[in-house]
């Protein structure tokens, strides 16, 4: 078989699943883990040489870190929130609305701030030149969008439900379907890049990137909910996903808070 050479270097899903289970057990035993992914998570092979070995250094933010870059109407066209209209034809796949609110750790809306997304197409293929998955490219779908949040922190994208895709972490590794999200808060320290997942994905248990968050409640915060109120008749289904950034360190003026 053609995959023999590769298979000899790559772990099996069973081996990776055992490692995931061991890390999860260590977390439940209280060894380590928190509300964020472990940076040192060997089941995700690429993390082995790319995680800091020293503890992150605790420090208080200085002035510049208590502010964030600012984006405005010149930066983003309202049309960029609709990933289904970037080409002359209709993209293939299930049209969805992905909407929610961005708030900080105290529940304050993150208003007028940049949100960027990128994703695979319905077949699980990225337009990226490094993506060699032999699923078809969709000439009517690029898979990148952005917007500025409203005054109440709300956002709404129109897109296509992405497919799961294979990757080379281990033999026959598949990522659960996801949309990559990039977010800014009011403070530089709130910067977040993450991934939104779809409810009930059978690949969750097998995926070392998702499982690198050892706390089950924290992991669940990355999963959107199906929301029938976000659907459009005869057109699209809808998912709601609210995002909480970490706490803000700014001294808020009364009229801002």
């Amino acid at each position, binding site marked *: 078989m053609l995959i023999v050479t590769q298979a000899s270097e790559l772990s099996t899903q069973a081996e990776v699943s055992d490692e995931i289970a061991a890390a999860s057990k260590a977390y439940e035993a209280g060894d380590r883990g*928190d*509300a*964020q*992914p472990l*940076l040192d998570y060997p089941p*995700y092979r*690429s*993390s*082995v*040489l*790319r*995680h*800091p*070995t*020293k*503890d*992150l*250094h*605790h*420090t*208080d933010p*200085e*002035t*510049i*870190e208590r502010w964030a*870059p*600012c*984006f*405005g109407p*010149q*930066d*983003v066209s309202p049309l960029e929130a609709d990933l289904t209209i970037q080409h002359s034809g209709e993209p293939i796949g299930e049209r969805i609305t992905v909407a929610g609110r961005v708030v900080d*750790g105290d*529940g304050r809306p993150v208003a007028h701030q*940049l949100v*960027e997304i*990128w994703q695979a197409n319905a077949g699980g293929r990225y*337009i*990226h030149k*490094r*993506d060699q998955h032999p699923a078809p490219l969709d000439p009517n779908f690029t*898979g990148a969008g952005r917007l500025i949040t409203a005054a109440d922190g709300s956002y709404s994208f129109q897109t296509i439900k992405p497919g799961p895709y294979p990757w080379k972490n281990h033999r026959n590794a598949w990522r659960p379907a996801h949309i*990559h999200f990039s977010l800014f808060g009011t403070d*530089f320290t709130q*910067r*977040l*890049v*993450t*991934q939104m997942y779809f409810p009930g994905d059978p690949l969750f248990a097998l995926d070392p*990137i998702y499982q*690198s*968050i050892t706390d089950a*409640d*924290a992991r669940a915060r*990355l999963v959107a909910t199906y929301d029938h109120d976000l659907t459009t008749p005869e057109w699209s289904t809808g998912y709601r996903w609210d*995002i*909480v*950034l*970490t706490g803000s*360190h700014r001294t808020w003026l009364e009229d801002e808070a």
Partner: protein
Amino acid sequence: MSTLMPTPGQTVGPFFHYGLPYEGGAELVPAGHPDAIRLHGTVLDGAGDPVPDSLIEIWQADPEGRIVQAPGSLHRDGWTFTGWGRAATDAAGRYSFTTVLPGAAEGDAPFFAVTVFARGLLDRLFSRAYVPEHPALHDDALLTSLPEDRRGTLIASSDASGLVFDIRLQGEGETVFLTFPDNGRLQA
């Protein structure tokens, strides 16, 4: 203290190049600007190999130490300094910004706030690139709280075009990465 639990981070992955980098992202000022300097470096992994699929962002004050709140970072107009930039590393793991030296409030050591993202890095990392040879470096709160042999990882060095700041994710000379209160990580 925050009342809501934060949404966890996840790796930026290998396919961010058509989602995040954009034209002019690494030029906080045009290269012809009279005060333009280059801030550049290489991102390295634990084996000392370059990391070609990482993304660096910087956020800084202007030369007078003012924090700029001007929009336009995604649509550079060639005149407005917004203080923010984004650069992906190239095939050799190098990144490069065209910018100006940050200033700081009276008596403080000026630095570029830095965020590092990469495939293989499960959550973003924060760091600082301090302007070298500044008198305030000697009593900076962060630098003096670090062991002497690690301080240098946060101080850029000078070259002919500006400043060099290499980022070592792991191993010998590992860069100091920061966490702030309320970042959702348990206190050690």
